[in-house]
Structure formats: structure tokens, C-alpha cells
């Protein structure tokens, strides 16, 4: 079941993931990301089965995240048909996992997922944004900007940056930290959390300097189609894949 929450809470079911993936593929999504928000051993089996089913009929890159904490689990997900695995909590607890994953499967397969919360600038958190783990429940005391650079150094091939403040609000992406990180690393940064209108994507891809924008609520609830969003972006001069 696909669910969507607000600020990482109150997740409500929004549909069957295979059906939704198929619809978004038909509608021109450039990549599809699955996050297993329950991330238990049992649910991982379900996710692997899901990836396997999706990968049989959807031929665009798939990223899978949620609770992945070993090379073995990465391999399972990749063999099931994902291009990339996204690691988050496990990477904070064991940063070597990024390095080992990149060595085993190539940097292009390793996405660092980061959940960040604005806590104000301090000596410990110079950027003002702190990394939180366990689905946004546990603060780490780690500065988000530092962690992004460190993950790149360890071999991450991409960063998926999710703002806890913005998640599910549909009020726009968190542009400041997105821009800070995107300017500081040379790997692609995918902005996540907060998209509600096509102009939010425009803002984060221009002002926020993100390489890609992740959307959930705005299409899950049928407010917009991917085609409409892309048409809007193309009109504004953003380079998008217009036919597929």
C-alpha cells in the first residue's frame, strides 16, 4: 500500500503501489522512488516482491529505500530490479556502508537519503539544519551540510534530501538547504518534501539548484498530473523530458 503523511506523521493509505507506479510511468515520470516507511524485516520481503513486479513492466529507473542496512539487503533490492538503493539511518550509524555499497555496486547505485530539520544555526550545527534518523524521529546532532559532503566523499552517487519541516505540507520545498547542499557537492541532489504546486518544482530546480524534484502528495491525490507539471516547467524554460 502506498501511504502519505504530513511532516512524517499520520500516514494514510493512498493506493496500490504497482498500479500507481504504472500510472506515473505512463504519465511521464522520469524515475520512481519507493520508500518502505515501516521498514521491518517482514515488510522488506513485500517491498522486494513489489519491486520485482514493478520492474517487469516499468522500464525507468527505480530507487528503493527504507530500513536497508547491509550489503546483502542492497543486493536483494538491486537484483529485484531497482537501479538504486537509498540508505539513510543505517548510513548515519555506519558510514562505511556507503563506501562498501559504492565499491560493491558502483556509486551510481547508492543514494544517501537525508531527513533534515531546521534547528537554528549553532556551533554544532553551522548550517542550521540537523540530520534526523529513524523516519524523522531521532535527532543525531549531525550537521546536514557536513553529512552531505561526507557521504559524497564516501562514495554516494546521489543525495535525496528530504525536509521534515516541508514534508506533506504542499507549501513548497525547503529551498535554502537544498541550494546549500547542491552547491557544496558535485553529485545530483534530489529535492523532496513540500511540493504542492508546479511552481514549487520550478523554484527548487532554479533557486534551489536541485538536479531533480521528487513529488508525492500532489500527484497521489490527483491534484495534478505529471504531464501538467512538466508542461508548466517546459513553459518556464526548464529542460524536461517532454515526450516518452
Amino acid at each position, binding site marked *: 500500500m502506498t501511504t502519505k503523511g504530513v511532516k512524517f506523521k499520520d500516514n494514510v493509505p493512498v493506493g496500490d503501489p504497482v498500479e500507481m507506479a504504472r500510472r506515473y*510511468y505512463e504519465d511521464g515520470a*522520469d524515475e520512481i522512488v519507493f520508500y518502505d516507511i515501516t521498514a521491518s524485516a517482514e515488510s522488506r520481503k513485500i517491498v522486494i516482491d513489489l519491486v520485482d513486479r514493478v*520492474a*517487469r*513492466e516499468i*522500464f*525507468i*529507473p527505480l530507487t528503493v529505500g527504507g530500513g536497508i542496512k547491509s550489503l546483502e539487503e542492497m543486493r536483494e533490492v*538491486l*537484483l529485484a*530490479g531497482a*537501479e538504486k538503493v537509498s540508505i539513510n539511518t543505517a548510513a548515519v550509524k555506519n558510514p562505511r556502508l556507503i563506501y562498501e555499497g559504492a565499491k560493491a*555496486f*558502483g556509486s*551510481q547505485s547508492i543514494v544517501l537519503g537525508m531527513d533534515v530539520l531546521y534547528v537554528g544555526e549553532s556551533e554544532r550545527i553551522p548550517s542550521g539544519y540537523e540530520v534526523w534518523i529513524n523516519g524523522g524521529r531521532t535527532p543525531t546532532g549531525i550537521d546536514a551540510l557536513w553529512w552531505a559532503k561526507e557521504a559524497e566523499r564516501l562514495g554516494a*552517487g*546521489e543525495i535525496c534530501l528530504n525536509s521534515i519541516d516541508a514534508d506533506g505540507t504542499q507549501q513548497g520545498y525547503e529551498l535554502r538547504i537544498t541550494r546549500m547542499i547542491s552547491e557544496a557537492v*558535485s*553529485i*545530483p541532489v534530489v529535492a523532496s518534501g513540500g511540493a504542492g504546486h508546479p511552481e514549487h518544482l520550478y523554484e527548487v530546480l532554479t533557486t534551489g539548484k536541485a*538536479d*531533480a524534484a521528487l513529488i508525492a502528495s500532489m500527484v497521489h491525490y490527483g491534484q495534478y498530473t505529471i504531464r501538467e507539471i512538466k508542461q508548466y516547467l517546459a513553459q518556464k524554460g526548464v529542460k524536461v*523530458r*517532454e*515526450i*516518452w
Partner: protein
Amino acid sequence: MVAILDYEAGNLTSVKRALDFLGFKSFITSDPEEVLRAERLIFPGVGAAGKAMEHLRQKGLDEALREFFLSGRPMLGICLGIQIIFEKSQEGPTQTLGFLKGKVVRFPEPLFDKQGERLKVPQMGWNRVRPVKAHRLFEGIDPRHEFYFVHSFYPEPEQEEIILGITEYGIEFPSAIAHGNLWAVQFHPEKSGRPGLRVLENFCRFNP
């Protein structure tokens, strides 16, 4: 039967899945004899050229590939597959198979697009392939279609006439080539949606 060559250079299951979806029978193999028995061959691959060549040589697959190439049966290289068919790669540097004259080089850095925005290396994402020559590889494909790329290196063939398509990413580079029975693309057709599937289908229906 289509053989998909496994030389420990990445995940081959997506190519297999795409062929299954299209209804073409295929199998994954790293056995030179099985390769030589196949009707057609796809050699995908991601990762470093040096390591890939090492695996190929260890298993005698470099020779099997050469024999297959000379036999005139259809073969398709994908991503790293387009790179190892030239003489040498700057990655390493590495001596590669040398079926075609030319070399493989890395994107120059810093790299900028026409608007002056800095481009990241590797190129990771969708991009167009501008056809420079009519060819069966592009049958049914609109020039506005895009394909999924993940790479830091690209081929520089000596013979310009083998270039079928050009992609722009800061610079222009050949992203699709063909030389008789040998086709090769820098992008991942198995991850490029419907146009990518069409490239695979065109290849599977191609009889030189």
C-alpha cells in the same frame, strides 16, 4: 535466443526483464561457449573499464566476443559495452577490445551547458540522441525522445561514418554507433521507457 553477457560489470537483470517484456527469449551467461552458440548477443555493463576487461580476459570472454563479432551475428553493447569495443580507454588507462578504431575519454571538467550552468559528472539522467544518420536502430523513434544515461566516459571513434547519434552534455559526443553487425549505445535502453524498449526490439529484429 539472445545471450546477455555477464562479465561481472553490474546488474543484468533489467536487460533480461526488458527482453522478457518484449517477448524475446534470452539467457544470462558468462560461458564463452554459450556465448558462441547464441544467435545474438547483448553486452551491457556499468563500472570501470579496467575491471571489466580483467574479468573478460580471465574467462576467455574477450576472445569469445571477438569471434562473435567476426562471425557477423548481431551484437549490441550497452553503456560500458560501447566503451570496451574501442582500442583504449582513458579510464585506468585500459587496453580494450579494439574491434573499432578509436578511444574512450572522460568528460572534460568543469563542464557547462549553453546557459553557463555547471554540469555534473557523471551524467546521470535523461537526454536526447540526435540522429545523424538513418538507421534501423532508431526505427520508430522520434528525435525528441530521451534516453537514460549514467556515465563519465564516452567514445571517440576514428571512423566518423559509424556514428549514428550525437548527445549534447556540455560537449557533443557519439551516443549511438553501428558498424555492420555491431551496434552500441551509451545510454541504457532497458531503463529508457518505451523508446528504449524500441531500440532493444529493433536490435532483436535485426538480421544483418
